[in-house]
């Protein structure tokens, strides 16, 4: 196995396209190293992207934020302006492992690992993030909800890597939240995850909303029907009940060691409703 730590994106792309056997991008390594140790993957080449400045920076862009794909969860938690703008994304990254793991794990890695239960993905989908991708054929953008195609599967072509995410400018009176259900309080994997992002007008009426669910399908889902239940309402009890019903209806989960199908369907509505309540409170607090 070969390990390379290029300093530029171009060098990283050159390494990936020249690899003979399996090449893997190494960011925090919190999934990859475990997979290697368990014998699930045996890459011929590891390309460590932590030395590439544009992949490890958090920058302001068009009133929003551009996050490098190798930005760690702790980098986000400790970035005051980002944390203030996107508390729901912070909710999600705070749930990824222990503090030590969060110091290594990255949002880009969480997305590319393509687990249906990834915590940051529903929060980023709700946040309407876009994904910047670079590859042998140049750069392109992808909507984050279209990026994951199934367990362990992504829209990346051979030789492509995710370089950064763009989160849009925040509207007035907007707020987001992510909640997950786990049997344990932490150090666990989502049985169901729900991200909600909404914006109110001056009269407190919801004008925009995005709702995303994790761990209830082969990938994190954007659920427009659930968002539609909020839009035009004052996010009152009736709207929240419609949101919960739409969220449950969108689920197509499996039975596994982490939860039963019926349990996940029930809980998805509860989590979506509770996340919406938190997002609403946050939206009302912001000017």
């Amino acid at each position, binding site marked *: 196995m070969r390990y390379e730590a290029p300093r530029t994106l171009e060098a990283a792309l050159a390494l990936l396209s020249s690899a003979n056997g399996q090449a893997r991008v190494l960011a925090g390594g919190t999934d990859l190293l475990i997979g290697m140790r368990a014998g699930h993957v045996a890459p011929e080449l590891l390309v460590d992207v932590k030395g590439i400045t544009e992949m490890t920076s958090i920058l302001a862009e068009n009133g929003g934020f551009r996050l490098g794909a190798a930005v760690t969860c702790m980098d986000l938690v400790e970035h005051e302006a980002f944390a203030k703008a996107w508390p729901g994304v912070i909710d999600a990254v705070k749930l990824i492992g222990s503090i030590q793991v969060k110091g290594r794990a990255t949002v880009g890695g969480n997305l590319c690992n393509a687990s249906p239960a990834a915590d940051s993905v529903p929060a980023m989908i709700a946040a309407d993030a876009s994904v910047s991708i670079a590859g042998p054929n140049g750069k392109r953008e992808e909507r984050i909800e279209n990026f994951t195609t199934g367990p362990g599967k992504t829209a990346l072509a051979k030789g492509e890597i995710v370089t950064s995410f763009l989160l849009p400018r925040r509207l007035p009176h907007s707020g987001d939240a992510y909640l997950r259900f786990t049997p344990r*309080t932490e150090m666990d994997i989502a049985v169901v995850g729900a991200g909600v992002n909404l914006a109110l007008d001056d009269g407190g009426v919801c004008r925009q909303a995005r709702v995303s669910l994790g761990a209830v399908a082969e990938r994190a889902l954007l659920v427009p029907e659930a968002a539609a239940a909020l839009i035009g309402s004052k996010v009152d009890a009736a709207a929240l009940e419609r949101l919960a019903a739409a969220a449950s209806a969108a689920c197509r989960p499996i039975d596994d*060691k982490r939860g039963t199908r019926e*349990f996940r369907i029930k809980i998805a509505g509860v989590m979506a409703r509770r996340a919406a309540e938190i997002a609403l409170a946050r939206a009302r607090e912001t000017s």
Partner: protein
Amino acid sequence: MPDTMTFTKKELRVVGTRPVRPDGVPKVTGLARFGADYSLPGMLWGRILRSPHAHARIRSIDTSKAQALRGVKAVMTSADLPEQKFEYVGPERVAVNFWHMTRSVMAREKVLFEGHPVAAVAATSKTIAEEALGLIEVDYEVLPHVIDVEDAMKPDAPLLFEDMITRGIEPAPDRPSNISKRIELKIGDVEAGFAAADEIVESSFKTAPVHQGYIEPQACLARFDTDGQAELWASSQGHFVIRALSARLLGMDIGNLRVYPAEIGGGFGGKNVPYVEPVALVLARKSGHPVKIVLSREEVFKGCGPAAGSIMTVKIGIKKDGRIVAAAGVFKFQAGAVPGSPVMNACMCAFSPYDIPNVRSVGYDVVSNRPKTAAYRAPGSPISAYAVESVIDMAAARISMDPLQFRLKNVAKPGTPTVWGPKHAHEGFAETIRALMQHPAYTTPLNKNQGRGVAAGYWFNNGGESSAAVHINEDGTVLVATGSSDLSGTRASLAMMAAETLGVEFDKVRPTVADTASIGYGHLSAGSRTTFATGIAVVEACKKVIGNLCARAAMIWDVNAEDVVWDGGCARYTGKKSGEFEPLSLKAIAVKKSVTGGPIVAEVSVNAGGVAPGFAAELCDVEVDPETGAVKVLRFVTAQDVGRAIHPSYVEGQLQGGAAQGIGWALNEEYIYDEAGRLTNAGFLDYRVPVASDLPRIETVLVEVPNPNHPFGVKGVGEANIVPSLAAVANAVSRAIGQRMTELPMSPPKILKAMNGGR
């Protein structure tokens, strides 16, 4: 009984204080050496090939390709271990059958569970060893398997042992089954008792197998000399027992095997028996190199025994005034792939907290295609206590009686008969229940969706064989060596008892765990026995040393030894002779050792009797999320009769640890199998022990009713605390949701389903 073993109440200087443990600094700085921390020049890495099937016949094993791989120095199979006689040896409660044990270490005719070892290799690197495992060709004939105890007991169940006839049934059944043993214990006339009852409460329960969850995976290093002498560094709960069992499994003399105790990163009963040690020894013998084996977490879950799962039915009959007049229990325990679940313990402990005239406990030991179960903290007792204490709770509710008052009304006292014959002989049960009743938590109001559960539990505790040596160094410092592995701060408790007895400061006493060639036999650190039994050996050895010190003082003073006493850490003259007899300190005498008779040493071995049982009563408050079924433990109070707490902090730690493990057992821990009989959650991510944020600060109440048979009143403290925990949580959840939960773990999907009327 020698007088040294009698408790006398007196003012104590060291016992009852909270000094820093002698093994504390190396453990927090990372310098303590655990099983995986030993290495030798020329060392090889051993790896074990494990069965991918839950049940299969081994047609053949071809190791030639692995053998031929460069870097591979030895390959072993069960053919390298001698066959053992089929017989159960030792007391029935803990009987061992070496025919089964050798097959647990390495499969012979069949693999009986996924993860069952079938071969092992030793190679110059871990990578080569891993590669070599892939080159071993095993031809399996896959057989139908059975996982659950109910299925395993069916007449048409796949049989693990085609000739196993249930023991304990007269006349013996004419057909083989997976039921290894039936036991029945009874006193009084159970039918008449139920006939006389005003109310009868009965319910059935199910519990999942759970793992001890020790942090340190099994690990050892072995070397073998060409003259047949071997050395082993291993982490275990008893290096003398590991020595005896490993020697027996290899067919070697015990005298040829020296075992050095590594620090142990948790055992809880799971490290009483060898898994990797015989394998490393065989590989070392075959290769001529030292061999190290360190298991992965997955191997620990799949290969090293969990505690038994169970199906149980318990029935009690009560009078209107709350007296229990009859009790009956049927306890069916999963033994795993080999007979030997702790079902007899379960039957014995089940009703032991109570004075019930008519009792019957029936137990079944049932094999199925899971790893062989191992002991886990009061093995058997928490399981049967879960069923019994749930039914007790239902009975108290039936007659609208306070659940602790109900227990107190029926509590066993000295003279109360046990279901296995002898009468209870110790106080402490009622005192413990009263202590919990008086705790402010018991009367704190609860809110909506909250519930409070209480439960009590009994555990035998153990005494037995222990050795200790006390050496007085020439500067007056003291060395205390024992053969007892330190799981829980016993170096501290033993050194404290030595310091107390000798009258020296705690930090002048250096305790050590000596290897099998350096001290007399010590049995396992198990059964909550070490501070009790090894403590007696230490105190006896100190008393012998004191006799020696007094004799030397008499020699220095030229007086009769009978006129010298040891008091306050000094020899004092009490006779009538005139002259200057300033007291002589231990140090003053030690300095003169060479001119007063040479080394000052005493070694004592005991087979300690006079054991007092453990008794605990616990309270748990929970809140259940009505929309998700999630349980939050709000408050947990554990009261235990500890006899006398030598080091209260470490005793409190034992109580808290037992409760934490019991809460995990009750709420989330379970072995989850797929349809092929493979374990799907062999890791700490999906095998959910509670993390710190899942638990409240567990409040402890140390009830001190001294054991009259121990110099400091010690009762074992390591196990009784987990016995009531499962039931305390279950009773709390049942009260919070208004219906009885009868299956563990009470995971959120199960609770939500129960709350939604089974939907």
